[in-house]
């Protein structure tokens, strides 16, 4: 016990930075009107400057590197606090779940774009495949947990149609193939009346092993169910993504991305590694698409336009290509910020675009640049 107290004391600054950030985000999710938003931004800016001046962020990173479990427990407790404060705020919880699911989608895109170097401009289309798969399956009373998985498998399966053209093309041309698919997908849905046509499909709420997502969760909002499940999915897929990156699989992808020809001459089978990255990425995208559709309760083709694919890609770029850690804050920014700017109504997307440009101006490699692979502790140190 004493040991724990001593350790907390030692890491007091890092812990308070984490908790203050959590409280800041909570308040950020709750503010509505112009005045509070502006004041909050000013206070946030001041805090940021204060923390940065004193190098506290670096210390948080040191904390994360040196005692990983302590750091994770800290994050977990901060998250728990946020959820307890927000337990009755339907909308804030809805936004948190959306951020978690969009982050999961972007882990899939990170595998494709950040690891294997495959540009996928059809992210929203695969997201939609997952959604439509679960919409059809839940109308057939298929068990929900299996439907969510099937959403992922369907996205991977539909993606396999694109494998051949993607393997035969490179760079911009491969990207063009995915753009064509994204456009085709939306038009197909609009013309296809068995899948609801342009009006889309209704989906019943999630229910698995007697856990009814439509009911309130221990007296809190029913969205709490979705938040918890989405966070669970996000954390599992994040862990999986990181493990893949650290393993020899990630090493192969790195080689492939940096130089196809030389990795081929070292005996790496380019096609099979590309297929693996593409299919696995689509599986993650479809999986979260299915969950997202369940949460929305209604999906329509206009949710999955080419523009939405660009939003997904921009999350990956803003977070720092290839760094799954960066994806989460970037998703938060891209999903929640336009929503928070609702008070300026028709000018909100304008201001949002300006803010994104500003961020990229000052951090051209995204919020958090991908670090070089370290093969063992202290790698690269002279």
């Amino acid at each position, binding site marked *: 016990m004493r040991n724990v107290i001593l350790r907390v004391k030692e890491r007091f600054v890092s812990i308070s930075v984490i908790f*203050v950030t959590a409280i*800041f985000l909570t308040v950020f999710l709750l503010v509505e009107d112009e005045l509070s938003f502006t004041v909050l931004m000013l206070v946030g800016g001041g805090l940021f400057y204060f923390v940065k001046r004193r190098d506290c962020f670096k*210390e948080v990173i040191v904390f994360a590197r040196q005692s990983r479990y302590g750091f994770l427990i800290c994050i977990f407790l901060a998250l728990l606090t946020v959820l307890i404060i927000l337990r009755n705020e339907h909308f804030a919880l809805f936004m948190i779940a959306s951020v978690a699911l969009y982050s999961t989608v972007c882990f899939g895109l990170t595998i494709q774009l950040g690891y294997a170097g495959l540009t996928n401009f059809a992210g929203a289309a695969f997201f939609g495949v997952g959604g439509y798969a679960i919409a059809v399956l839940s109308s057939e009373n298929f068990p929900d947990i299996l439907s969510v998985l099937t959403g992922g498998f369907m996205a991977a399966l539909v993606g396999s149609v694109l494998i051949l053209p993607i393997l035969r093309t490179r760079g911009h041309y491969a990207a063009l193939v995915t753009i064509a698919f994204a456009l085709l997908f939306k038009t197909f849905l609009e013309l296809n009346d068995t899948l609801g046509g342009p009006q889309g499909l209704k989906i019943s709420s999630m229910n698995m092993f007697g856990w009814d997502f439509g009911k309130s969760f221990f007296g809190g909002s029913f969205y709490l169910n979705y938040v918890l499940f989405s966070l669970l999915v996000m954390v599992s897929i994040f862990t999986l993504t990181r493990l893949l990156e650290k393993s020899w699989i990630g090493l192969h992808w790195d080689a492939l991305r940096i130089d196809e020809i030389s990795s081929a001459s070292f005996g790496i089978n380019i096609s099979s590694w590309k297929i693996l990255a593409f299919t696995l990425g689509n599986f993650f995208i479809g999986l979260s698409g299915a969950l997202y559709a369940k949460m929305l309760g209604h999906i329509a083709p206009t949710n999955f336009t080419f523009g939405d694919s660009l939003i997904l890609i921009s999350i990956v770029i803003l977070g720092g290509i290839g760094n799954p850690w960066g994806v989460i804050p970037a998703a938060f920014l891209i999903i929640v910020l336009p929503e928070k700017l609702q008070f300026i109504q028709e000018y909100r997307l304008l201001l949002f675009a300006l803010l994104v440009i500003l961020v990229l101006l000052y951090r051209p490699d995204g919020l958090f640049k991908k670090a070089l692979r370290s093969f063992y502790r202290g790698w690269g140190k002279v």
Partner: protein
Amino acid sequence: MCNFGSIDNKARSAYADRDSPVKMTPFVGGENMLNRGFLIFSFCLLVVGCSSEDGSAVKIGFIGPLTGGVSANGIGGRNSVDLAIKLANADVTKQYKYQLVALDDECKPNIGIQVATKAAADSSILGAVAHYCSAVAVGTVDVFHKFAMPMIVWGAVLPKITYGNDYPEVHRVNGTMINQNDVAAKFMVDLGYKTWAIIHDTTDYGKGHDKYFTESLEKYGGIVLGRFGVTADQQDFNAELTKIKALEPDVIYFGGITPIGVRVRTQMDRLNIPAIFQGTSGIISDAYIEGAGTLAEGTLAFREGDSAERLPGGKMFLAEYDRNNYSSPPEAYGPFAFAAANLLIDAIESEGPDRKKITSYLNKVRNYNSVIGKITFDENGQNMVPLITRFVVQDGKWKIWEMSEYADNIRSLNRQNPK
């Protein structure tokens, strides 16, 4: 190294050396001051969070497309609701002060569900005037029902929104595309036209119009020569129009909204197609006339409800709208949004700030006088508007057919074949 005293170089170099264990200075003495500053900051945050509540005013939500291709209509609707609230607040006989919460749905279902959740989950918002886009409204009615929030649709025309469910919360002041197309088909056949070519966008809006117009047209004896579905963001219609030119229809029926309406109309002219251009409620906007210019002359379109210009309340609405100097016009559905907002305000005045009571008040609305004529909700919450107003463009303005020079045979819709 995070050091709340001075940041000395030694500490920095200690940080740079990652293998060396980081030594932390425990918090003692004068450093506590700065530490406190840190905590005060976070308290500020909490205060900001808590102070954002404003208990005195009653809130009314507005949801519509404020950005994107149909934003002109959304902004017109938003201004009209804003006007209704301003007038109510200026009226001393009203018990409550009203406040508008305007939300942008971007005409996308997922964003629509998001903002509808936001409005409906906020218990200080008593009711909503919501949705111009049908695909969005179809998705959000479930949300409004789930949170028991009374809502009135002000622009979306898909029948399913009111008839596809039995939610007591859902109402609609504008008519559906069924009535609109029935009147349109009869009117055009009576004018003596016989053959049609249909261009519709592949959204629910365009497809619905195609379906209901064709049904009505068959009833009245018109013939459809060809039918062309186009995507809502298509730029070039030469392929469709070339085929249509060969079919030589009397009329081109267009089921879609303003941006592609303008494109179809201008490209028709480029191909010298002499057919009459007949649109739907989706192109009744000043943006259409601005976009098509002089080519807009003689374009026909139909809309539910009486015209604001013909009603005493409507004239008042237009005059007040002008007086408040909004930067953009109310557009075709502004009066509907205005009427819906007034209905909601009257419901709150009579029943008090209680969502359930407001809902049951709205369900009992019969023969309510508004700027769009009388409003009577049927058991599905649908306004049974008997009247469809016919419009034609004359000299750069949407004119009511009966008041135009075309009705008096001073001008003719039939254009001379330019060749």
